[in-house]
C-alpha cells in the first residue's frame, strides 16, 4: 500500500532522513516510534506531501506520489495539537474538506452527522466553537475532520500526547476501533512505547533517521534487534563487567569481546528461598522501592555484581529498604550486543517468539 524507496530529506546541510525504506500493508496500523528528533514526524510529513524529499520515491497503491501536491493525495491527518481552525465551529471544522470539494449541502450535513456520532461527539457540540471544547473533544473533532473525507490513508502525528493519562488510555482503544471499522491504512507516529505496543499491528523503531527494527509489538519487545531498541522499548539492566565475566565462566553467556549484556527488569526475580535449576543467584540489599499498584520496582545492590532493578508482581510479598534478598535470573534471558549495537546472543523469549 505505502512504499518509501530510498527517501532522503535534507534541510540545508542536515540530513533528517537518510535513505529511508519502508513498506506498509493495506489496512495495517503501522507505528513509527522513536525518541524526539529521530525523523519519525519527517517521514510522516513526507508521506503527507508537506515535505518534499530530496531524493527517493514514494508509492501509494502502486502510484508514484512523490511530487503530487498534498491537497491531491486524499490522506487524512490528525496533528499533535489537532490544528483545528479556531475561527470556526465544530461543524465548520469537520465540514471544511467537504466544502472544499463543493459537495451538496445535504450530503455535507449527513456526512458530518454520521462521523460525529462515530467518533463519539454529541450533536449539540456541532455549533460550538472548537475553543470551548475539552482536549478530548477537540481530539475527536480532529479525528472526525480527517475521517469524514474517507481518506485512503490516515496519518496520526502523536495525536494523544496532549491528553491526560486516563483519557489517553480511553482514546487509544477508540482510535484503534475506528481504524478497524473503516479498515483504513494508518501510519501512527509516537514517542510513547506503550502506545506503540498496544495499538500497532507492526512497529518500526527509529533512531537518528534510520529504522533500527521492524516487527510486531511482541517481536520488538521480546527480540530487540539492536542495543538501542533494547533500551528504548521496555526497561533493562545493563550488567556490570564483573557479573558478565562470572556468567562467561559459568557458561551462561558466550565469550565475546567488546559486548554489552542486558537483562529485562521483569526477567530478574526476587527468590523466595527455593533454589531452581539453571538460575543465576545474586545476594544483595534493597536500596530503593517504588509501588505501582499491580507491580513494584526494587533496586537491589548486589555488590561487585552491580546494582540491578527488578519489577515484581504484587503477590503479597513486599520488601523494604535495607532488606537482604537474593535475586535470580536465567541465562537464556540475557541479551548480548556487539559494539556496533547489533545483537550477538539472543536467548530471551525464544519460546514466546516461536509461538507468536
Amino acid at each position, binding site marked *: 500500500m505505502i512504499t518509501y524507496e530510498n527517501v532522503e530529506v535534507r534541510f540545508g546541510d542536515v540530513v533528517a532522513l537518510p535513505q529511508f525504506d519502508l513498506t506498509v500493508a493495506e489496512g495495517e496500523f503501522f507505528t513509527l516510534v522513536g525518541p524526539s528528533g529521530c525523523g519519525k514526524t519527517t517521514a510522516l*510529513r513526507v508521506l*503527507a*506531501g*508537506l515535505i518534499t524529499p530530496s531524493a527517493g520515491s514514494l508509492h501509494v497503491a502502486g502510484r508514484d506520489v512523490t511530487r503530487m*501536491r*498534498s*491537497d*491531491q*493525495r*486524499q*490522506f*487524512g*491527518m490528525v*496533528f*499533535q*495539537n*489537532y*490544528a*483545528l*481552525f*479556531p*475561527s*470556526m465551529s465544530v461543524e465548520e471544522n469537520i465540514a*471544511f*474538506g467537504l466544502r*472544499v*470539494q463543493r459537495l451538496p449541502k445535504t450530503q455535507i450535513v449527513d456526512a458530518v452527522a454520521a462521523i460525529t456520532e462515530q467518533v463519539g461527539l454529541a450533536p449539540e457540540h456541532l455549533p460550538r*466553537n*472548537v*475553543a*470551548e*471544547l475539552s*482536549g478530548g473533544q*477537540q481530539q475527536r473533532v480532529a479525528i472526525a*475532520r480527517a475521517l469524514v*473525507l474517507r481518506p485512503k490513508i490516515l496519518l496520526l502525528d502523536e495525536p494523544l500526547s*496532549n491528553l491526560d493519562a486516563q483519557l489517553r488510555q480511553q482514546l487509544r482503544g477508540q482510535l484503534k476501533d475506528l481504524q478497524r471499522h473503516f479498515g483504513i491504512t494508518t501510519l501512527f507516529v509516537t514517542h510513547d512505547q506503550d502506545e506503540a505496543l498496544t495499538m500497532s499491528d507492526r512497529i518500526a523503531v527509529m533512531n537518528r533517521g534510520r529504522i533500527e527494527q521492524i516487527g510486531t509489538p511482541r517481536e520488538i519487545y521480546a527480540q530487540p534487534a539492536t542495543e538501542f531498541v533494547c533500551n528504548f522499548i521496555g526497561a533493562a539492566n545493563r550488567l556490570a563487567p564483573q557479573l558478565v565475566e562470572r556468567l562467561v565462566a559459568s557458561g551462561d553467556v558466550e565469550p565475546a569481546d567488546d559486548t554489552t549484556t542486558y537483562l529485562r527488569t521483569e526477567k530478574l526475580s526476587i527468590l523466595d528461598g527455593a533454589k531452581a535449576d539453571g538460575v543465576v543467584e545474586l545476594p544483595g540489599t534493597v536500596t530503593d522501592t517504588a509501588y505501582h499498584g499491580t507491580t513494584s520496582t526494587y533496586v537491589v545492590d548486589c555488590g561487585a555484581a552491580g546494582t540491578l532493578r527488578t519489577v515484581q508482581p504484587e503477590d503479597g510479598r513486599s520488601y523494604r529498604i535495607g532488606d537482604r534478598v537474593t535475586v535470580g535470573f536465567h541465562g537464556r534471558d540475557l541479551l548480548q550486543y556487539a559494539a556496533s549495537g547489533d545483537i550477538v546472543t539472543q536467548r530471551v523469549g525464544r519460546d514466546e517468539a516461536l509461538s507468536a
Partner: protein
Amino acid sequence: MASVRRMLRNPLFFVVTLVMGWFIIAFLVMPNVSVLQAVFVDRTGSPSFRAVERLLDSHRAVDALRNSFLLAAVLSVTVNVLGIFIVLATRFYAIRGARLLWLGYATTLIYSGIVMVSGYRTVYGPTGVVTRIIRSVIPGLDPNWFTGAGAVIFVLTISSTGYHLLFLSTAMSRIDLQTVEAARLMGASDWRILRSVVMPVLKPIVYAITILTFLAGLSALAAPQILGRGDFATIAPMILTFANSPTSRDLAATLAIVLGLSTIALLTIFNRLERNGLYFSVSKVSAHLTKQPIHNRAANVAVHATAYLVFVVYVLPPALIVLYSFTDAKAINSGKISWGSVTFDNYLEVLTQERGYRPFLISMGYGAVTAVAVLIAMLVTARMIQRYRNPLTAAMEYLLHLPWILPSTMIALGMILTFDRPQPVVGWQVLTGTVALLAVAYISVKLPFTFRLLKAAFAGVPDNLEDAATLLGARPTYTFRKVLIPLVLPTAAAVSALTFNSLLDEYDLAAFLAHPIYQPLGMVIKQATSGETVTDETAHTFVYTTLLMLIAGLTMWLVYGRTGSRRPPPTATPNRERPRRAEPDPMEVL
C-alpha cells in the same frame, strides 16, 4: 531561487510582488535617491559638497541643528523623569485616586501632535487662562511668555510621556511581586527596592523609550514651529522653510540627511537593546505585582501632591478645550464664561456647514484610504514574506522598513524633489502639489507599522493549520481566505483603527505635501491657532479637537482598553502554540 519560483507560482503573490515592487521603487527608493542627489550632485550632474558647505555657512541652519540636538537631549531627561514618575504613581505605589490620575495622564494618548500643541498655546498663550492668572499676580509679564525653548520642552515633555504610559506600565505590571517581597524581607527600604529591584529590570525599556524620545525631539515640527517662533528654530521647521523655495531645497535635503542619519544610528542602538530582551521574572510561577505603600510619611505626601499637580497640568488644556468648544470666541477672549455663553453653535457650524466639516472629511478620507490600502497590501505581503524566506522577500522586508527609519520630513522632501517633474515610473505625471501625493506619503509611512504587526500575527498562527487545510484539499488562496485571514482579523482591525486615528490630525507630512485647496485637519488647526487672539475659526478647532479626542479615545479603548477585562482570545490549540493576542504588542508598536 527555488523558493522565489515557488512563491511566484501563486498568482496572488505574483501580483503583490509586482505591485509592491513598483511601489517600493517609485515611492520608497526614488525619493531618497532624490534627496541624496540634491545634496551631493550639482546642477551639471557632477559630485559636489556645495550644499554641505552652504549649510555650514548658514547661521540659521547651524543654530537649528544645535537646537534640535539640545532639545532631543533635554527631552530624554525630562520625559523620563516625568514618565517614570507618573507610571510609578499610578502603577507601582499605592496613591489615592490612582485611577483618576491615570485617566488624566492618559489624555496624551487621545490628544497629541498639532492638536496638543495648539491646546497648550490656547491655555498658556497670550489670551490663555493661565497667562491671565499669572498676569493678575505679575502684571508686567509678557503675554507671549509661553514661547521659545522652555515652552517647546514643556509641551513636548508632556506629549511624549505616552510611551511610558503604554509600554513602561506594561513592563511594570510584569515585575514579579515575589522579588519585591523578598527584598522587603531582607530589610530593603522603599527607595532601595525601587532603585535596586524595580528599576534595573525596567532599564531596557527605559533605554528604548529614551531613544524614541530623542528621535521625536530631533524631528519635532509642530511644537517648535508654533511655540519656538523665531527664538528657537529647529531642524524640521527649517527643512519646511527651505523646502518652500526651489533655491534652498538642497539645504533642506542636507538637513534631512542629517536627521535621517541620526535616526538610523539611534535605531541601530535601539535594535541592539531590543535583542537583549526584557527580563521581568526568572521564576516559573511569578506573582502579579500589587501596589506598594510608601512608608515614609513625608515622601508619601510629597508624591501625592506632585502627582495631583502634574494631573492638573495634564488635564487643564483638554478640559478647557472641551469647555471652549461650547462657547464663542468673544467669551474665550474675555475669559468670562457663564452658562449663558454655553452654546452648540460651534458644533452646528462644524457639522452642518461645508467650511466646517470639509477639513474633517478630507482628513477622514485620507485616513480611510490609507488604512484600507495599507491593510490590503500588507495582509498579503506580510504573509508572503513570513512564509517564504528568500533574497526577494528579504529585500522587500528591508525596503518596507525605510519609512520607519527615516523621519517624515525627509520622506516628504524626497517626494517633493522626485515628483515635481514628470516621472516615467508614475506614467510621466507630476505629483507634487496633487491630492494623491499626500495619500501616497501616508501609505508609505504607515507600511512598516502595519507590516510588523501583521507579520507577527501571521507568525503566531501555527503552521499546521495551513497544513491541515491543504491535506483537506484546500488550495492556498482558499486557505488564506478561509483559515488565515479570520485568525489575523483582530490584529488587522486594530492596526487599521490606529492608522486611521493617527492620520486624522496629522501635520508633519501635510505641512509639506497638502494640496492648497484640500487642506486636512492638521493644517487647518495649525493656521487657526497660530494667531494672537482667539477667533471663530479657533473656536471651530476646539470642536475638531473634542471630536478627535472622542474618536481617539474610542479607538484606544477598542484596541487596548478591553484587554484587562477580556478573556483570552479563543484558541483551539491545546499546547504552547497559542495564537498571538489580537491587539498590537507594545514592543511591536515600538
